[in-house]
């Protein structure tokens, strides 16, 4: 049981990234590989600031800003230098590997057990339940904020940009600027996943982000399948289903592992 709860908490931690990938992949139709780098960046920044004794609220904000900066660079490379979005993401991701390594100064850093975000609210004696609450709390806040933004006039403009660029240009929307902002939001959400997972597993590893974009894509694909199957049109509900997709993804992995499927197969 604990085994599945752990998968559930991990799914919740990664659902922020799922929301980010939903923005790039479903709203802008851009395959954004920056994710691998910005996820690790979030974990690296978190580890360093925690070790330096910074308060958690400040760490969340700085992590989110660091992720946003990564996304902004991808956006600038893509729109200003007219480089294919996939390639721009790969460039920035590769660059981030070096940045992360020099920031961290070594290949991994354990986090002390005390004072992580998961020990903030010790409501239950069972730590897994507390972790669950924290995971749910973050998902609710992030999905709630994103759902609000996407329903505003600005959010409509953003959703239209990925849909019909000729239309948005004619309606006074700067498509390049929108893409840069969208990539920034997406990667700041990804960095927050890095923030959560680093604290959840008590260490930051320079390689922890490699291939993580696939987990995000998987979540969005599962979420999207549910969304079209159930015919969901409200954007807030769509976001919840993307998060659900991320959790299902982790649970399926857990089932596969518990069945004893040899990972080296």
């Amino acid at each position, binding site marked *: 049981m604990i085994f599945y709860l752990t998968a559930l908490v991990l799914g919740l931690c990664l659902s922020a990234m799922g929301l980010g990938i939903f923005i790039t992949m479903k709203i802008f139709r851009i395959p954004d590989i920056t994710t691998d780098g910005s996820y690790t960046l979030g974990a690296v920044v978190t580890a360093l600031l925690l070790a330096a004794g910074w308060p958690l609220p400040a760490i969340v904000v700085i992590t989110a800003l660091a992720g946003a900066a990564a996304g902004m660079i991808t956006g600038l490379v893509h729109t200003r230098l007219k480089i294919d979005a996939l390639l721009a993401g790969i460039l920035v991701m590769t660059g981030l590997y070096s940045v992360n390594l020099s920031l961290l100064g070594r290949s991994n850093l354990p986090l002390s057990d005390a004072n992580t975000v998961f020990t903030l609210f010790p409501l239950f004696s069972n730590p897994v339940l507390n972790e669950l609450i924290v995971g749910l709390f973050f998902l609710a806040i992030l999905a709630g904020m994103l759902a609000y933004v996407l*329903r*505003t*006039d600005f959010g*409509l*403009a953003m959703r239209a940009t990925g849909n019909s660029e000729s*239309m948005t240009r*004619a*309606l*006074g929307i700067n498509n390049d600027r929108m893409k840069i902002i969208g990539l920034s939001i997406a990667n700041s959400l990804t960095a927050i996943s890095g923030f959560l997972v680093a604290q959840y597993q008590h260490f930051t590893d320079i390689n922890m982000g490699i291939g993580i974009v696939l987990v995000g894509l998987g979540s969005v694909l599962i979420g999207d399948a549910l969304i079209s199957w159930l015919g969901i049109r409200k954007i807030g509900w769509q976001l919840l289903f993307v998060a659900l997709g991320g959790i299902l993804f982790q649970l399926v992995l857990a089932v596969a592992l518990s069945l004893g499927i040899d990972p080296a197969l």
Partner: protein
Amino acid sequence: MITLRNIQKTFNRGQANEISALRSVDLTIKDAEFVVLVGANGSGKTTLLNVIAGAILPSEGRVIFDQEDVTLLPEHQRSRWVARVFQNPLGGTAPDLSILDNFRLAALRTQKKGLRIGINQAFKAKVKDRIALLGLGLENKLQQPIGSLSGGQRQALTLLMCTMDQTDILLLDEPTAALDPKSAEIVMGTAENLIKELKLTTVLITHNLQDAHRYGNRLIQMAEGQVIRDLNQAEKENLKREEMFAWFG
């Protein structure tokens, strides 16, 4: 007033497939003038409209609105003055967004799209009333994704969207080409009313010579990237339909 001075546009310059879409177009369109633009396929009509809208930067020449030189202003900034219906019915709407969402964005064409939820009951009612004018029965489908409508229905809605916000210049690129005769009649009628009521400076491209004869107060024919005929209101009124058909004979 729109002034085009010595506009030239060459695509793929220096390559084997180089093409002069516009060769020296000089044109002044007065306020509230309703210009009908005709010409064979590939004569440069859409390119001319794109130059006015800012979607295409001319290779040579200036574009001036009133006194302001807007030649270098990108399309999304020129939208302050210009609203348009594209030749391609998919060009003017965001298919995954609802009719209502599309109209909301159109209502903010000249304004900032801020962080507030702008769709309220009053706005819904306003959009509903506008759409009911078309008589196509679309006013009860406001929440439906606009991509689920037919090309003709989308084209009719795009026309209405053009007047949701302050507009000076209206560019219509074959707005009724995808419509059945009855809907085409409705859309052209709606367009004419809006143009008169709001005193819009309008350029309408059409291959329908009946429409070209019936609407507008100036008639321009293009061929091979140049203006070859330019008839003012009186000349246009005196023009017999058979004469115009003969232009294309």
